[in-house]
Structure formats: structure tokens, C-alpha cells
């Protein structure tokens, strides 16, 4: 599903995802990380065209296996032994630590899934174009180049098939030689092409002045509002982390700092930050209902 929020200015969207990633990675507090995981899964399921539970599962299982099963076998910190393997204690603390750690990694992966959809090539180029227009141009060229390269390779391969080459009865050596040949054609083709490309670039003044970067995005008033709210909410949460409100120790013995009023306020702010895209979506729906679709 396409969310209205994804159409906001790329800086707003990028800052939202940036805060979510930073705040997830800055603490080892299970509550914070838990909240982050829940929302990251919600968003990544919404933005992906089909439900991608399979991806979630496939990325989650190895992470959990690694941090909760393999890691405790080698790390023996902690004071609560659960059982012994080869006279070495497997402690509860390492397992819990591994669990929280996996949740964090998983939620980071999910946030990046969302990033992938919301910050597409065009927005990515825009964001980097602000840093360096040349870098932006390069990214744009690469984005064009990859599918072109693949298409050309396919075409070259088809021609070899047309000349009577077939994979079925070819030995490994034959296949390798063939691949080398196809690659060599691809490279010469591309080089030949790049001469024309560079001519076209130079005759349009490439490298003469300081480059600017063209884009089609407009900064709207709603973007300012959205950005301010996000920064404000994130600032509160960061202050909380700064004041060590969310400290949690796992070793040698688990200890979670008890929540006070401010830390609860911080958590509320964190949740509010996480639901900003939903609020925008709701506002949009409401506007539409009021304006036309009565």
C-alpha cells in the first residue's frame, strides 16, 4: 500500500527513518527496542506490495539462532547458569542479551526495508545531490547502467545461442570460455558506447562550472510542520537516553533501571514519533472525506 507520508519531502521521510534507526540502536532497553520492532514490522508490511512474512521469517531465524544458541555456547558471562556443556556454563544472561540483540537487529533490518521503498532512486539521488551533485549524477548513471548492462548481456548471449552454442552439452571449460567471450563483447560494446556518452556529456558542458542538481521536490508548509514535530519528539527521547533513563545492564546480573515519570514521557514521545506517518495518513483521509467524497 502506498502511504501518503511517502510522498512527503525526501528530507522529512529520511529524517523520520534516521531517528527511528538511531533511537533503536542507541539503547539496549527491551521496551524501546520492542516498540521499535513492532512499528518496523507494521510499516514494512504496509509498504511492501505483498505481505512479506517470508522475508521476515527468513531473516529472523538465522539471527535468533546465532545470537541465542551459538553465542551463549562461547560466551559465559552472567551469574545464572541454566545448564552445563563440557563443564562450561550456559547462562540465562547471555541468552536474554542475545534475544534483545536479535530483536534490535531484526528491527533495524525492517526499518531498512521501509527505507528501500520510501527512499527510491530519485529521492536517494536528491538526498545525496545536496551533499555532492557529482555523486548524485554518478548514482543516477549507475542506476541506469545496471539494467542496461544486464539487458545487453542477455542479448549477447542470445546471439551466441543463435550461432549454435548450447549450454546443455557444454563442458565446464566450454562454459567458462563462452562466458569470457560474452563478457569481452559486453565490455567492448560498453566502451564503444561510453565514447559517445562522454561526447554527449562534454558537448552539454559537463565539468565546466560548479554543478547544480535538478530535482522535482517542493518543500511544503506541511513538511515544515512534520519536520518540527519529528525533531521535537526525537529530542525528548534523546534527552531521556542522555540522562540514562533507559540504562539496562545484562552482565554480570540483569538490572533494568526502574521507570520514572520522565522515562514514561520519553516512551510516549517515542511511540508518537513512530506513529507520525499514520497521523499524516489519517489527516489525509479526513481531508478527502471533508472536501469531496461526501
Amino acid at each position, binding site marked *: 500500500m502506498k502511504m501518503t507520508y511517502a510522498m512527503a519531502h525526501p528530507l522529512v521521510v529520511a529524517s523520520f527513518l534516521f531517528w527511528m534507526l538511531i533511537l533503536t540502536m542507541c539503547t539496549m532497553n527491551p521496551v524501546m527496542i520492542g516498540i521499535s520492532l513492532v512499528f518496523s514490522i507494521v510499516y514494512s508490511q504496509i509498504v511492501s506490495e505483498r505481505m512479506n512474512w517470508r522475508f521476515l521469517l527468513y531473516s529472523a531465524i538465522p539471527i535468533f539462532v546465532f545470537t541465542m544458541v551459538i553465542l551463549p555456547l562461547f560466551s559465559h558471562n552472567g551469574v545464572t547458569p541454566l545448564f552445563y556443556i563440557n563443564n562450561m556454563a550456559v547462562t540465562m544472561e547471555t541468552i536474554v542479551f542475545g534475544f534483545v540483540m536479535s530483536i534490535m537487529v531484526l528491527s533495524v533490518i525492517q526499518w531498512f526495508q521501509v527505507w528501500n521503498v520510501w527512499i527510491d532512486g530519485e529521492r536517494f539521488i536528491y538526498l545525496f545531490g545536496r551533499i555532492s551533485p557529482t555523486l548524485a549524477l554518478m548514482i543516477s548513471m549507475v542506476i*541506469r547502467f545496471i539494467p542496461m548492462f544486464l539487458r545487453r548481456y542477455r542479448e549477447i548471449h542470445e546471439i551466441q545461442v*543463435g550461432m*549454435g552454442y548450447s549450454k546443455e552439452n557444454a563442458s565446464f571449460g566450454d562454459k567458462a570460455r563462452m562466458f569470457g567471450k560474452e563478457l569481452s563483447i559486453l565490455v567492448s560494446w560498453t566502451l564503444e558506447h561510453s565514447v559517445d*556518452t562522454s561526447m554527449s556529456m562534454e558537448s*552539454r558542458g*559537463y565539468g565546466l562550472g560548479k554543478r*547544480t542538481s535538478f530535482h522535482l521536490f517542493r518543500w511544503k508548509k506541511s513538511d515544515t510542520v512534520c519536520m518540527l514535530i519529528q525533531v521535537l519528539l526525537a529530542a525528548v527521547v534523546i534527552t531521556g537516553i542522555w540522562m540514562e533513563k533507559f540504562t539496562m545492564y545484562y552482565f554480570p546480573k540483569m538490572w533494568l533501571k526502574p521507570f520514572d515519570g520522565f522515562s514514561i514521557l520519553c516512551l510516549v514521545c517515542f511511540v508518537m514519533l513512530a506513529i507520525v506517518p499514520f497521523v499524516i495518513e489519517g489527516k489525509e483521509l479526513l481531508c478527502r472525506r471533508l472536501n469531496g467524497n461526501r
Partner: protein
Amino acid sequence: MSQIEWKQVSYWYPQMEEPILKDISFQVKEGEIVLLCGKSGCGKSTLLRQMNPSLVSGGTLTGNISIEGKLLETMSPMEAVKNIGYVGQNPEAQIVTDKVWHELAFGLESLSVPNVQMKRRVAEMAEFFGISGLFLKDTNALSGGQMQILNLASVMVMRPKILLLDEPTSQLDPIMAQRFIETLKRINEEFGVTIVISEQCLEQVLPMADRVLIMEEGKLVELTDTRVCGQMMWEKKNPVFQALPAAMKLHVETKSSGSAPLNVVEGVRWLKTKKLATFETLQKEERKNTDISLEAKGVSFGYEKKQKKVLEDFSVSFPVGKVSAILGGNGTGKTTILKVLSGIYKPERGKLKTKGRCVYMPQNPQLLFTEPTVCEELEEVFIGHSRQFGNLSDKEIADRVIEMLEFMELNEVASNHPFDLSGGQQQRLALGKLLLLEPDILLLDEPTKGLDAAFKEKMGELFEKLKKSGKTIIMVSHDVDFSAEHADYCGLLFQGQIANLEPVNQFFCENYFYTTSVHRMFQRLDENSPVITCKQALEVLLSKTVPERNGEG
């Protein structure tokens, strides 16, 4: 005052003794359209590039080139880029970025134009060129013709005063080429941009040009008025004559008086002043029952399951030892047909019956080249297909290579790098490689694309030779004139089907649009006119009798 002025200019490429441009002087007035023509390799591209400082690399230049009274070498690069636009041959290679809007803005980005201003200039040009609908698309998703229009538009956003074009339509199909040329004409009329354009096929460009520059081996032979250029070429025996519009060729060759016609309308008007014998009605003939070399029955093929099929219930049969041409618009699946017939793609449904071995030749012959020299390129066939040629001795291989070099007339360039050959030679080398595989059926994809008239003629001769040795040739092409002259059978591909493969005369006589411009003229004189090629027309005009049907059908 003239806008472009050349004074005794000669130019040498680095480390070359012979100059590639020899003592050239001419002037171009503001807002003129000048057509540059000459055999391929005569220095057209070099001449064009000399006028754009950012495209010249090394070499020695003597004499003066000035633009708007200012010497080119005193011009700052910035000034040159702003005033002089350049569009080359290859549509895809000239595109730099991934999105259409970004491509349009590329030049302005280089000139550090602020974003707000860029937005307006880009939008304006997108509207002018009618590509607003493509604005947000990926450049990879465009057709060749759209790409070339985009290239032109992204040069025009920089608002140049002079536009240099190096064979811009040679890679396009006739309909897109026409659209491109019309756009150029509008640019010239509405913005007063001076245009210098070189082109191989003159049928469409010539009527638009104000004057014609004729080049021959680095020398400027003539800068003449468009109407008389045909006469000039004829007198000088310039091979470019063959590429002129048919009406003009006939006018010159029959030594007629009056101003030469440039297009079909003028041609008809001129022909009507002549008294011609009435034509015999063309005898409808069914195809004789010849041996079939390749037959498709009810073949269907699509690239993706959900999409519409490219070929739907496609049936056709090609006779042995003949040249068959498949014509059709762009995107009708002409290339796909060849790939299915040659066995590269497996049909989803239907049957293919092939007698003998098929080989497929791509549009771009460079895709077959891997070796550093022409000679090794041919030898490579024997190494690459050692299974087929397992028992051949080295001497036998060498003999066959030499034989092929001779057959393809590539002796002189045998030790050159394949990429350094001219377009026509590359085409012949690729064909030579395929012929060494001893195929019975040759499937050619646009064999005349980008070739000049002389090379086309040579390709036609080659077809005759191959036919004599019993090979079947099947080609897909946009080139109506070439097909009319050198094919035996023709068929029109539409909606994934070929209605009927007919003898070439019958095919072109019955078509109204998909036919040669000669026939379109003669059709206006007499509906039943069997004249389709220039040769036949000339016979009719000179003898004023009806030609024998050259009955190959």
C-alpha cells in the same frame, strides 16, 4: 553576415600524414539548414565536430573557423557549450542519466542554473517536444526514436544558436525519422536555430534543407542549392546520388529540364507532364510451389506470461534459395520473429520446421566481434565451434578464412581491428563469420541499418551471390527501397501475424503506404502501374514502354 565561416581549413588527426579535411572554405548564413552529404568515411563527422570545441581532441588544424565573427579558438568553453548544440548517431549512448527529467536538466546542471529556473526551462522544452508524458519515465524504457527526440530536447534546453547533427536518424525507423526531421524543421522555423546536419539517407531530409554541402574524400566539392544538388552529384558521379529522393534521381537521370522535384507530390506533378504509355495490369500470381526451407505453423510467443503475446498464431513459410523480407512498424516484434525462427527463443505453441541450419545476425554486428583483427575474427569461428570443425587441418582453416575474406571483399582490412571498420565492412565481417558456420538459412535483422547507398548496393550484390549458392535469406527491415530491389518475397507483420508472403512486385504494387516512393508516384498516374523500383521507372521513362516484369516470382 554569415554565422559560420570556414576559411581554408585543413585538419590532421594526431600522427596522421594525410589530412582528413583538405582546404575547406564555406559560409553558412543565420537560420539556414545545411545538409552535409558524402560517402561514409569522407570526413563528414570530423567536419561537424570541428565546429564544437568540446568534441575536438588533439590533431592539427590550419585555417580559421569563426562563429558569429568570433574565432573558435578564442571562444571560452562555456560560450561554446551555450551556443553550439550537438546530437550524434546513437540514441542510447548519448543518454547519461536514469530519468527523462534528469536527462533534460543535465546541461543546465552543468551550467549551474538554479533549480527554479531549471524547472521552467525543462518544462517548456518538454512541452515543445511533446514528451511531457514521458517526463517521469526511466530513460531505459524509451524506444530508440523517443530517445533521440529526448537527446535533441536536452540539447535545446540550453538554447543553442547552432545545432550540429551527425546522422541523427540513421538508427531510427522511417516513421520516427520523419518525426525527428519535422521537429528539426520546427526548431529552425520557431527559434531561428541554424542547423548543419549530415545524413546517409536523403529521402526525408533533403526537402527540408536550404543548401547542400557535398564532400568527397575530405574535400568540399560543392555547396549548392538543394534543387540542383542532384545534377551536381550526377555530373561528378558521386555515389551519394543513389541516396537522393527517387523523384529527383529520375528527374536528373532522364535529363529533364525545369527544377528538380524533391518529394512525391512534386514528382507526380512532374511525371504528369510526361506522356507515358498505359500500363498492363499486373497479373496476380500465386506463389509457385517451391521447396520450403523454413516453416512456422501457429506459433505463439510472449516474453512474459501475463503480457500480450508478441506472436499470436503466426504462420509463414519461406522458399528455398530466395530472399524474403518481412516489413513492419517498430515494436511489432520483427526481431522476436527472427529469434523464434532461429531457435533462440522456444515458441510456446505451434510448430517450426527447419530444413538445414539457421543462423541469426543481429542489428549490431559488433556483438559478434571478440578478436583484435579481422583475420583472427574469422579464425575464431573454427576454434569456437571445434565440435563442428573437429577434423579440419590448420591449412584448411586458413584456406577457408582467405576465401571468406575475398568473398566479403575484406582483404585490404584483414589486419585491422574489427571496431575500426566502416559500418558496411563490419556488417560484411559479421556475415562472413556466420557464413563460415555453413548455414543454409540466414536470418538478418535490419541488414541495411545505418549503411550508405554504396554499401547497400554491395549488400544487394552479396545477396545475389548467396542466393546462387543456394542459401535462403530471411530479413526483417524498415528499408522499403532495399527490399523492393533485392527481395523476392515480402510480407507485412502486423499484430503478431503475417498476412501473406507475396512476390515482391505484387506486394509493393498492392500497398499504398508500405511501398517505395517510386511506386507511390506511379500509382497516382495509373492505379495498376507495376513500377516499384527506380530502375524500372527509368526504363519506363526512357523507353516510354511497359517493362517486362522481371519475373522471379
